[in-house]
């Protein structure tokens, strides 16, 4: 019997192994910092201070985390159905169009809390539509969803560039972006949430979409573990042949899972577009769709894990900004390195330590 099939207790599989993977990823990042002649410990302290040392820092951290929760959920929902959605980036970008169109239409007439539900729906529908074609191609024509979603990221980028440069741009302005939304199209900041903890939010763009993200976490948990559809998705993810044999409709389940995934990715746009900048800008997603992959892998595709992982990446993003300010030798791109290492160790090398752990566990279990 190979070591891969030896059962291990849950706390090792869901606690220790991810933690070990994460520690190795951070150790190697530390080595990179050390290699370019800075102290990894100093860097860590600066990073944590920048991210958590002030109300404003925490506000920025949670702002980034909000986007990552949405994209992390997006990737996770697809993974539960056995689909690897690399297209969250493009789906979020197109979702931005949906929520911007709603905001641009309604902001003259109604207050933000009326605009918000429509914007949520608009963003979700546009994101879901962008996921629909790859989903349909996978379900009906057998083209691999990984490849088509990659292609759709690029197509989304070209399409949105075209729209922003030629159609949505404010006449007479140079910057390819829409007009600034009025108050009726802006999501209010969560200043009161920070006040509750006795600190001030400052310039941080933490906004109501953070709460929407938390609600979505709960809804995804209900969907995946408490509904028939979720059960069908998970069955499909574990074994497509068994699922089909059991009478679960393959095409329908694949398409619904991808629509949900795309919708969640699209909703990420609420945070930067309506929450932070109050306008639709070129490339506003800034890689959050790809961070979602790391977040989902690290959080083991569970909403709770995703919240923790998203906050961790929020700390990295905000702390990384502060760090690059204090240590000019370390650029912001160090975050991308850490992100890559997290994906590598938490995703691709997930079970590297498993055989060793099995051996250790068996030694201890016997005594």
């Amino acid at each position, binding site marked *: 019997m190979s070591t891969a099939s030896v059962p291990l207790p849950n706390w090792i599989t869901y606690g220790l192994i991810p933690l070990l993977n994460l520690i190795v990823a951070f150790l190697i990042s530390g080595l990179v910092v050390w290699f370019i002649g800075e102290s990894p410990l100093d860097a860590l302290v600066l990073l944590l201070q920048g991210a958590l040392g002030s109300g404003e820092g925490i506000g920025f951290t949670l702002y980034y985390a909000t986007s990552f929760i949405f994209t992390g959920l997006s990737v996770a929902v697809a993974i539960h159905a056995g689909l690897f959605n690399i297209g969250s980036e493009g789906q979020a970008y197109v979702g931005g169009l949906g929520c911007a169109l709603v905001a641009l239409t309604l902001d003259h007439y109604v207050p933000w809390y009326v605009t918000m539900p429509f914007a949520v729906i608009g963003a979700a529908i546009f994101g879901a539509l962008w996921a629909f074609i790859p989903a349909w191609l996978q379900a009906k*024509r057998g*083209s691999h969803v990984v490849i088509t979603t990659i292609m759709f990221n*690029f197509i989304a980028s070209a399409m949105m*560039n*075209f729209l922003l440069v030629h159609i949505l741009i404010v006449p007479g302005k140079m910057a390819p972006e829409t007009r600034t939304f009025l108050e009726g199209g802006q999501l209010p900041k969560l200043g009161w949430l920070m006040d509750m903890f006795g600190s001030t939010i400052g310039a941080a763009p933490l906004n109501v979409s953070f709460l929407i993200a938390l609600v979505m976490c709960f809804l995804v948990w209900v969907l995946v573990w408490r509904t028939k559809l979720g059960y069908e998705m998970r069955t499909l993810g574990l074994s497509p042949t068994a699922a089909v044999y059991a009478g679960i409709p393959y095409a329908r389940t694949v398409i619904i899972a991808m629509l949900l995934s795309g919708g969640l990715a699209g909703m990420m746009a609420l945070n930067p577009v309506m929450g932070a900048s109050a306008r639709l800008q070129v490339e506003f997603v800034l890689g959050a769709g790809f961070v979602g992959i790391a977040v989902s892998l690290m959080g083991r595709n569970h909403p709770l894990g995703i919240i923790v992982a998203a906050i961790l990446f929020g700390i990295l993003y905000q702390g990384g900004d502060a760090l690059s300010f204090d240590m000019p030798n370390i650029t912001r791109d160090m975050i991308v390195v850490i992100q*890559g290492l997290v994906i590598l160790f938490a995703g691709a*090398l*997930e*079970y590297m330590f498993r055989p060793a752990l099995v051996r250790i566990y068996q030694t201890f279990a016997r005594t």
Partner: protein
Amino acid sequence: MDYYDLLISILGSTIRLSIPLIFTALAGLFSERAGIFDIGLEGKMLASAFAAACVASISGSPWAGLGAGIVVSVVVGLLHGFASITNRGNQIVSGVAINFLMAGLTIVLGQAWFGQGGRTPTLAATARFSGITLPGADAIRDVPFIGPLYANVISGNNILTYLAFLTVPISWWILYRTRFGLRLRAVGENPGAVDTAGISVEWLRYRSLIAAGILCGFSGTYLAIAQSAAFINNMSAGKGYIALAALIFAKWKPVPVMFTCLLFGFLDAFANFMQGKAVPGIGEVPVQIFQALPYILTCILLAGFIGVAKPPKAGGVPYTKER
């Protein structure tokens, strides 16, 4: 300017833009034919471009740069192998990780070493692969029709360009006429059969990744020290993914790979040329349409509307011996 001169200049830039695609798509061909999905082409290109630019700027020799580019790209390929062959990790996740790692690492290291925001110092002409004038190019230049084609499109390219076109038949020969190629294709279709024949699936797949690494080394080097004179942040700019699209569009076959890359290169060159120009009767065609066209074409092909693209059967599945 008459139309023929225009055509010549577009063809010239088509060749220049196609070369990195040809090398990279052939790299993907070796790896995917052996059953290893290679999303990390982009990362390998970036890593080798950075290594080539660094070493060329320190040593002043383009050949040393090429060597470094190849070595680094092979090492990245081995990392992909370690994750997806030895540890049976998800090949796509591993490829995505490599793309991130290299996108970040090249800028972090570049900034730390050269302090120019991730750029490497501009190379002197002697540290680059510069254009080679083929014999008779100047003599024939004024001959109508053939002259400009020979002098400005076929002649005057750097050595890597000619090498790229040479790599196509070589790859074909390796894949279809050698024992290694036969086994490589077999391991991508049915690794169990190869294993039963007593050949190591793992070692074969590692060798296919090494071959892919070498080819990506050429493409990265081309970007950094043949086409440009320095490494610039994220200079592969999605070319790894276009090459992946080209590979699929060419249905995982070497000669069609070359033609697809030339087609995608032509679209790119044509888009650059058309920027800000109006087509009679239609008006200005947005450049974004040309940018999106390779991806749209690939999706249409994948959907089976223009022929069927059938990937190697065992692609993406790690091989487990005991079953």
